[in-house]
């Protein structure tokens, strides 16, 4: 009987990891793939009966801004993507990325107890979601509930999380997983950008902020793998090029003695700043 290896994987978005650039992790993933299925050609139905579903879940902006708060970072409104930019986003790509960016900005404002800025970014997010056709997720009743509880930081944080979970589910239901992946990218990248900017402008000890930035290498690997799935899309292919460039710099960041490579750190700062500018300037 002729035997063939059949790999059946659903790759379910909203986070995705397992980086092809990481040696150990690649081995581990290959191991899991190798053990999936080894079946004969006349057993396709049997193969279908046994699926290994792989999820990769990226940290949300909620998680990143909590880490920033704990590190002693401060709030700086000038770092946010201005809400006035909302009207210049028209393509699905720009809307999705910047919905993620706004999600991170509103999480940052909420955790740092800036209620008016939080509601402004929530309103902007609603506009973006509506333009993307994500209907009824940020409804008028959700906005009212949001406004009424604006001073309850944890309640608002749970609302933000629920909204983003709902948006992701909506997009997947409608076979728009690529759009969902761009929202994830925008949110994660804004967290990295804010951490880097705050680290640069910090007047005190910024060690914890730098550690947050270093730890984002794990998430970057996840992000690259997520984008790899949709690399046939030309927009995503371009973004993937930028992410791979950032990953290359990350590999130089920590020296063998555990010290930070200052020149790599400076290069990372410049690359993250320029990529974020491209994202919010709709380039």
């Amino acid at each position, binding site marked *: 009987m002729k035997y*063939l290896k*059949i790999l*059946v994987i*659903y790759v*379910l978005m*909203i*986070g995705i*990891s*397992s980086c092809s650039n990481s040696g*150990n*992790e690649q081995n*581990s993933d290959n191991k*899991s793939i190798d053990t999936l299925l080894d079946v004969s*050609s006349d057993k*396709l139905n049997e*193969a*279908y*009966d*046994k*699926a*290994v*579903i*792989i*999820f*990769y*879940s*990226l*940290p*949300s*902006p*909620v*998680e990143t801004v*909590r*880490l920033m*708060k*704990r590190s002693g970072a401060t709030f700086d409104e000038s770092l946010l993507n201005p809400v006035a930019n909302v009207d210049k986003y028209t393509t699905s790509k720009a809307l999705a990325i910047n919905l993620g960016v706004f999600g991170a900005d509103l999480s940052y404002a909420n*955790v740092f107890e800036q209620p008016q800025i939080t509601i402004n970014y929530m309103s902007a997010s609603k506009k973006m979601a509506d333009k993307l056709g994500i209907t009824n997720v940020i409804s008028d009743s959700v906005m009212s509930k949001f406004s009424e509880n604006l001073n309850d930081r*944890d309640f608002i*944080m*749970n609302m*933000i*999380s*629920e*909204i*983003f*979970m*709902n948006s*992701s*589910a*909506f997009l*997947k*239901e*409608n*076979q728009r997983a690529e759009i969902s992946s761009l929202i994830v990218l925008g949110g994660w990248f804004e967290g990295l950008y804010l951490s880097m900017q705050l680290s640069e402008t910090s007047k005190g000890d910024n060690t914890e902020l730098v*550690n*947050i930035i270093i*730890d984002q290498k*794990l*998430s970057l690997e*996840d992000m690259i793998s997520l984008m790899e799935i949709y690399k046939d899309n030309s927009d995503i292919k371009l973004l993937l090029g930028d992410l791979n460039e950032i990953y290359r710099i990350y590999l130089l960041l920590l020296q063998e003695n555990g010290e930070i490579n200052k020149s790599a750190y400076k290069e990372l700062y410049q690359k993250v700043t320029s990529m974020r500018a491209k994202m919010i300037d709709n380039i």
Partner: protein
Amino acid sequence: MLRNKLLALLTVLLLASGVSWAQCKEFALDEGLKQLDTEKYIHDGRFNAIRLRGGDDIRLYKSFFQGESYRITVVAESTLNDVTFEVVDFKENNVLFSSQKSKSMIWDFNSDVSQRLVIVVHVPKDQNPETLRGCIAIMFGVKKDIK
């Protein structure tokens, strides 16, 4: 010929995944958030839910950060019997938590280091896997403790 069959199979699976997600949103929002306990934990906002049948497995990869307290919980519809999950250290492959051993579908832990973990969910094969399907949601929360 076989290649075409495989492509067709993969297409069906990918198309079916949209349906699977669609049917699990309410379950994740209701049962998932309830078990996560949003009074004590802030949900991470990610949608990790799908409709499965007996015999299927899930592997979910996620990074956890130093100094945070997390809750991981897996909820399954009652049509799926005896669903279990394990949390495995990505680097060393050590099992850090087993729902079967702990007799709990909730794991609360403090992350001493930043690390990647793998959540492995097992859905036991049933005698009639074609008819028994149900939603599974994997939920993550961070403890509300920062001032």
